[in-house]
Each structure stands twice: as C-alpha cells, then as structure tokens.
C-alpha cells in the first residue's frame, strides 16, 4: 500500500495533496498495478475533504475526531505511523509543508524507516527507492537512495503536476486511533491574511525588496502590479524585518519556497537566502537599479532602472 497523508486547509483539499496523488500513481505503476493507493484524512469535521479525495485514491481512511481539530506533531505522527503499520504501507507520502516537515521525522523513527525529505523526483523499484532533492540552499541537486520495506517521503510542493480527479469515488473507511496527549499547548494563533491567491499555489508571484523604498512603495508598486496580474505577493527578509510586510509573505530560506510560472522581483538585489526560495521559478523577471545585482544573473528578463519610474510605466502598459 502507498499511503498519502492528505493535506487540507480551510475545508479544502490542498494542491499539494493532488501533487502527492501524481507521485503515488507513478509509484503504484512502478511497484505493480495491484499496489493500492490509500489516502488518510486526519482532522475534525472532514467529511467534505474525505469525499473530495475519494476521487484521488483507491481507498480513503478517515479519522474524523475532535482530538484532531488542531494539528499537533505528536498526534499526527502517532496517527500516521499506526495506520502505516496496520496497512503495511511500503511508502508513506507526506506534504513538504512546515507541518509535514515537522512530524514526518517522528513517523520515520516510529517505523524505523528512512526519511527522504523534500523530494523532487522519486522512483521505487522492488525495495529500493531513489530520489532527488535540493541541498545547499537549493543550489545543488543531490540523489539519495534508501533500501528497506518502508520509506517515509516528504514531497516538495510545486514540483509535481497535480493529478486529475477520477470520475468514480473510492470507498471510505473510518479508522480508530490510539492517540497520545498533546504536549505543545497552543495559546494563540495569528492567521495569514488571505485576500490574494496563496503564495505557494500562485502561477504568478510579484515580490518586493528594499528597492521599493517604503511600506507605501510596496503597496503602490508591488501590490498594484500583483492585483493587475492576479498574482500573489512576496517579500524579502529585509523588508519583513523592517516591518513593511508580514512574515507570511517572506520568500526564501526562512520563508516560503515558490516555483511559479512567472516571478517578478521588484527592487530585490538577490541574496542567496532569497534566491533559494525562488530560483526554480520558470520565468524570472527583475527590476532593479543596480545592474550588478545578483538577481539579474538568474533572470530571463529585466530592466535596470528606478522602481518609482518603471512600475507605473509597466502598469500603464499592462492596462493598454
């Protein structure tokens, strides 16, 4: 069995889940067509999620429990390890989100299995798994191998094409879980503002750095361009630290990793830490005053010039 742990947020199945379905279907083919793909739904009031993913997998395992209303690394890892054991899963696919990367190591240790993190390609033939992943701040592509009956794998978001839902729905089964008590007590939450398309799922991302001049400049240039293009907005660490933008918009090593079809960097010089979060974008456009800025080296298109002159001109051109 190939087990997918379904990622969902705000009552919807996340795009990352459909990307994992693509990986699972490829693996099932490599391992023999009778290898079933099971989707595990963890949460509270997740009936709609289970119905949606029934069109993705051969069977859906549902743990709809009040105790799972809130993500917790110890609860999630216990649940996934238990289901993987009972179903004799050979590969466990977990999303490479912040939470997935947090509880997957616990699952690997519970199952005494290797952990293949943030993979961008995966092949499983017999008991051997070969994968590729980015290392050294996403500047190197490494190949790793693991052998054994079980492997825990996290899938880097935005790499694989999302699978198409099937027409028929798989059967759903409720599962019983033996859950530990949560030891990390959450006392408050600050949610991301979600007025725009989500940064990690957007086809176009417009990001701003110090070169936009100020928080007002960001709104005037970056947000205006993003709205015109239906894009998500991103920010560098420098302007997040300066308080111009929220952390949730930060792109880079300590923020989010994005691979949109189009990435437009406005007033961003291109520190390695920022580049590691966006250098896999399909087309990169840079607008910066400094012709020597590292961002231009990884750009397909760019303009050397001042943001306050260029951005209004680009906006006007787009509206023509």
């Amino acid at each position: 069995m190939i087990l997918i742990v379904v990622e969902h947020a705000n009552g919807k199945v996340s795009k990352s889940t459909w990307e994992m379905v693509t990986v699972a279907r490829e693996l099932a083919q490599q391992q023999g067509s009778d290898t079933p793909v099971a989707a595990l739904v963890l949460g509270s009031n997740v009936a709609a999620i289970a119905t949606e993913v029934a069109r993705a997998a051969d069977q859906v395992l549902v743990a709809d429990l009040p105790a799972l209303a809130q993500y917790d690394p110890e609860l999630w890892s216990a649940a996934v390890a238990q289901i993987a054991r009972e179903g004799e899963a050979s590969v466990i696919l977990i999303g490479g989100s912040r939470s997935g990367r947090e509880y997957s190591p616990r699952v690997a240790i519970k199952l005494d299995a290797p952990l293949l993190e943030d993979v961008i390609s995966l092949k499983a033939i017999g008991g051997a798994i070969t994968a590729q992943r980015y290392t050294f701040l996403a500047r190197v592509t490494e190949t790793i191998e693991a052998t054994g009956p079980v492997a825990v794998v996290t899938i880097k978001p935005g790499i694989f094409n999302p699978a198409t839902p099937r027409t028929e729905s798989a059967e759903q089964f409720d599962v019983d879980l033996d859950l530990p008590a949560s030891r990390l007590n959450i006392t408050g939450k600050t949610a991301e503002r979600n007025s725009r398309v989500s940064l990690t799922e957007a086809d176009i991302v417009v990001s701003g750095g110090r070169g936009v001049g100020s928080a007002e400049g960001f709104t005037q240039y970056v947000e205006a361009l993003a709205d015109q293009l239906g894009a998500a907005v991103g920010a560098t660490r420098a302007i997040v630290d300066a308080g111009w933008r929220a952390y949730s918009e930060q792109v880079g090593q300590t923020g989010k990793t994005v691979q949109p079809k189009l990435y437009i960097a406005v007033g961003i010089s291109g520190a390695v830490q920022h580049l590691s979060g966006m250098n896999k974008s399909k087309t990169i456009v840079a607008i910066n005053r400094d012709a020597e800025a590292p961002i231009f080296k990884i750009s397909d298109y760019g303009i050397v010039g001042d943001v306050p002159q260029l951005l209004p001109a680009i906006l006007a051109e787009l509206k023509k």
Partner: protein
Amino acid sequence: MRILTYIRQVLDAEESVRVANNTVALESSKLVMDTMDEYGVEEALRLRESGVEAEIIAIAVGPARMQEALRTALAMGADRAIHVETDTRLDAIALSKILAEIAQKEEATLIFSGGQQADWDSHALGAATAERLNWPQATWTSALELKGTTLTGKHDVDEGSETFTVELPAVITTQQGLNEPRYPTLPNIMKSKKKELRKESLDQFNITPKIKFAGAEIQVKARLNKILNGKDALAAAAELVALLRDEAKVIA
C-alpha cells in the same frame, strides 16, 4: 539545568558551491557556523543571563574542521563542547540518535537546533531527536521565555504563527528573528581556548544510516538574461511587457 546546542559548520552563504567527484567540494571554501544554529547558542546564553542556572554544551558531529564552529560557540559563551568526529556524512535521522544519546548521558533538559541546516537543507533533526527522547518539540521559534520548567514562546506554522507553552524537557528549533547572535569578543576568544572540547568516536553510537548519498550536481537553469536599460522608462516598460506577452507567453 543543562542545555545542548547542536551546531553545524556550513558553507558561507556568500561562497559559491562546487561539485567534484559527485559530491559537494568544501575544501578551500570559507566555512562558518550555520547561522540557524547561532540563534540556538545565543538563546541558551540569554536564558542563562536572565538568571537561569544552566550549563551550556555545544555539540557537533562531523569532520575535524567542525571544531572551528565549536570554538566559535565556546567563544560566544558556551561552557564546553563535544565533538563526535567522523568523515561519514549522516542524514538527520542518523544524527538524531547521536544527539539523543548525548542528551541522555548529559542529563540535558533543553536542546536547541537550527530550524534548517544550510548544507543538507533538512528540517528533520529537531523533531527526530525529540521523538527518540520522547520529548515534545517546538519548531521555528521566534520568541522564547523560560519560567521554572515552562517554556513560553511563539513559532511559525503552515498558515501564520502560534503562541505556545511547553514543559521541559523539550527540543526547540531556532531561526532568524529569535535574537541577534553576539560576536565573540577577543577576551572571550582567548578564554574559550582553555574550555573543554571533548572528542568522542562515532563507533559507540552504533549508527547504521538508512540513506545513501548517490550523487550531486549543480543544475543551472539556462536563463535568457535579456536585461533592458531603463533610462527611458516608458520604452523599457513597453518592451518588457511585449516580451512577457509574445515571447515568454507568461501573461495575457
């Protein structure tokens, strides 16, 4: 109490990466303590300076050169250091066994580790160590305060951030924003040379890595590098938009 801070020595972010013989070549490159790990050393020092009685032990696993990073931690103010020397590259799951065993031997109740390692690009070490010790964890923390044995803090999650409390013992992973790591002063660098740096052999930990490193390459996506002069803003804007529409076909 005893605090362990796990540190790695990695390529300086400004250095370029080279691959030779199917692996990343670090010889003759500038290497530094992973900045993500510096926040853990700094936070341990701040806890002690806030009045908590604590011994701070810096730990590194890797080749002999890692001692430079440990000396930096000692110069920042850590009390002693443990170096598990090996030239074998270990993944986070294998490393966590070493860290957990040392934590038990040293009777530590708090472990700091960087949120992500800048060489292996892994987030797994903190959680894996917590699992082996059966401790709770808080990852990607950006604020921490210790009262008695209760740690209060803030950390980043999938869609924003959360405030939390957790009882020690616990594993905490650190990141930018948690604090501003100090630079070692010259007197402290001198003092650190007399501090204990204990070497341990890898053999005693019985590590059998489950991950094999099979190759490394630098895949540079070819970029078009069509960079326009923006002196005439209107003309440059028109040309860029035309390129994006007609050549790249990425906008409507």
